[in-house]
């Protein structure tokens, strides 16, 4: 399986580079992105061939920058797309779908990007993988490294949720807690990447890593019967996921698998870390970094590398980058759980709350089809809702059950 990828290209100045472990343009420091031979993909990737592929993101290998599918991996991707009628009704809409990416091997969409990054890193001859992470990526890198027998170093902010640290360390990798926020961890890793011959999945192999996110768009289109929805709502941390979901739909149009019609792309941020939403509101073309202060730690990137590109996509498609309060995040988590049976981490609370806000503002018409991307599992951020839920506690005694439980549950009596 020769790759359909042709070269790396600077998104800022257009200079070309070979398909090596490069991530920024040597000249202007702009980010490098993989460029493909779409004629080759068009000839190869038919609907039949995709349908015969594995029930994982590797069914779209023709669209990914790797020479081969991995011989051992965790089969990430091909997660459920669920029609969320009760959520839709609550928001005054008719067609809402939830792409439930909590159903990945380590319970977040990061398994997609890590699958691609690790495979490419091994193809490029690296023997050690590493990452800077707000948690989900740490879990995924650790699990994939363990499955493939690759040594790994995982760097996280020291104040990260304990669940995410345990769910990384359990895989037997080197976990380094850095006393600082994510942006500090990221800066340290970028400096280490200059000194060590390690594959930092989200630093020096980032162009390959980021491509993994496109598979969310491919799956959504395939699961809808090979078409794009009218609108999508995507959480924004670095901004990479949003731009790659947009690229994924665009590519499907380019190779003739769906009609050429990019969905309107909405971005979701927390007010406590909403530099891209702020830039959108102010009509700026650059993103002013901020110091994050939000319960949505997986979105807490104050200096988002792809923020400017997320802004461009939202503006070009007629979308918006919106932000929500901490209370709205918690309400969003509960709304999604109570209407769909999906328990999301704080990032999904942000995404759901932004959908609710857009619907309330009349930005989404009743008949429009919207896909909500839920990218991580609620069990990772239990603290966010822990103090806000009520339960009953009684002795094993029937009359107590009647008096203290049934009396208070009007609906089911």
């Amino acid at each position, binding site marked *: 399986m020769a790759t359909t990828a042709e070269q790396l290209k600077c998104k800022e100045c257009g200079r070309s580079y070979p398909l090596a472990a490069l991530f*920024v343009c040597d000249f202007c420091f702009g980010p490098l992105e993989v460029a493909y031979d779409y004629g080759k993909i068009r000839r190869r990737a038919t609907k039949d061939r995709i349908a015969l592929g594995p029930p994982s993101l590797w069914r779209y290998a023709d669209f990914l920058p790797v020479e081969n599918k991995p011989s051992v991996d965790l089969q990430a991707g091909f997660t459920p797309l669920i029609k969320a009628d009760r959520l839709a009704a609550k928001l005054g809409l008719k067609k809402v779908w939830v792409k439930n990416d909590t159903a990945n091997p380590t319970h977040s969409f990061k398994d997609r990007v890590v699958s691609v990054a690790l495979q490419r890193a091994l193809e490029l001859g690296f023997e050690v993988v590493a990452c800077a992470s707000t948690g989900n990526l740490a879990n995924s890198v650790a699990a994939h490294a363990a499955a493939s027998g690759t040594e790994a170093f995982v760097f996280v902010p020291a104040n990260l949720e304990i669940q995410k640290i345990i769910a990384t360390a359990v895989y037997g990798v080197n976990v380094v807690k850095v006393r600082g926020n994510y942006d500090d961890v990221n800066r340290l890793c*970028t400096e280490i990447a200059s000194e060590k011959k390690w594959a*930092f999945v989200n630093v020096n192999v980032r162009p390959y890593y980021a491509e993994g996110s496109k598979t969310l768009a491919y799956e959504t289109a395939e699961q809808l019967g090979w078409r794009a929805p009218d609108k999508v709502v995507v959480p924004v941390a670095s901004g990479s996921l949003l731009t790659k979901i947009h690229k994924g739909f665009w590519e499907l149009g380019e190779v003739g698998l769906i009609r050429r019609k990019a969905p309107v792309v909405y971005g979701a941020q927390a007010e406590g870390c909403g530099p891209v939403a702020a830039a959108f509101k102010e009509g700026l073309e650059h993103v002013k*970094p901020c110091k994050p202060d939000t319960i949505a730690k997986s979105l807490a990137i104050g200096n*988002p*590398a792809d923020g400017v590109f997320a802004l461009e996509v939202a503006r070009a498609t007629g979308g918006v980058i919106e932000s929500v309060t901490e209370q709205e995040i918690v309400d969003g988590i509960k709304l999604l759980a109570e209407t769909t049976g999906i328990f999301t981490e704080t990032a999904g609370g942000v995404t759901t709350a932004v959908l609710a806000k857009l619907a309330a503002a009349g930005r989404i018409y009743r008949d429009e089809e919207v896909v909500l991307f839920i990218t991580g599992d609620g069990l990772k951020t239990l603290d966010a809702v822990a103090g806000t839920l009520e339960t009953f506690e009684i002795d094993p005694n029937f009359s107590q059950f009647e008096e203290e439980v049934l009396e208070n549950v009007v609906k089911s009596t």
Partner: protein
Amino acid sequence: MSVKIRIPSQLRNLTGGEGMVETDAGTVGRIIMELENLHPGIAERLLDGGEVRRFINIYVDGDDIRFDKGLDTSVADGSEISIVPAVAGG
């Protein structure tokens, strides 16, 4: 005493492979001009139209100069400057 500047791998072809360069204290802008005298060509790579290029972050002792006074941020003796590509993370 002087200021230490960590040079990212992308710029080391201009510093003869050196990952660390020392200059006198001053503002970030003056230090970049001094770097340019030592290693011609480096200023063009860091600045565009008199501003830091948008995909470059400059930190003084770990703090992003955008949170301070940008190129006018003063750098004291013994401080360390990091020049880091913005393209990472997420």
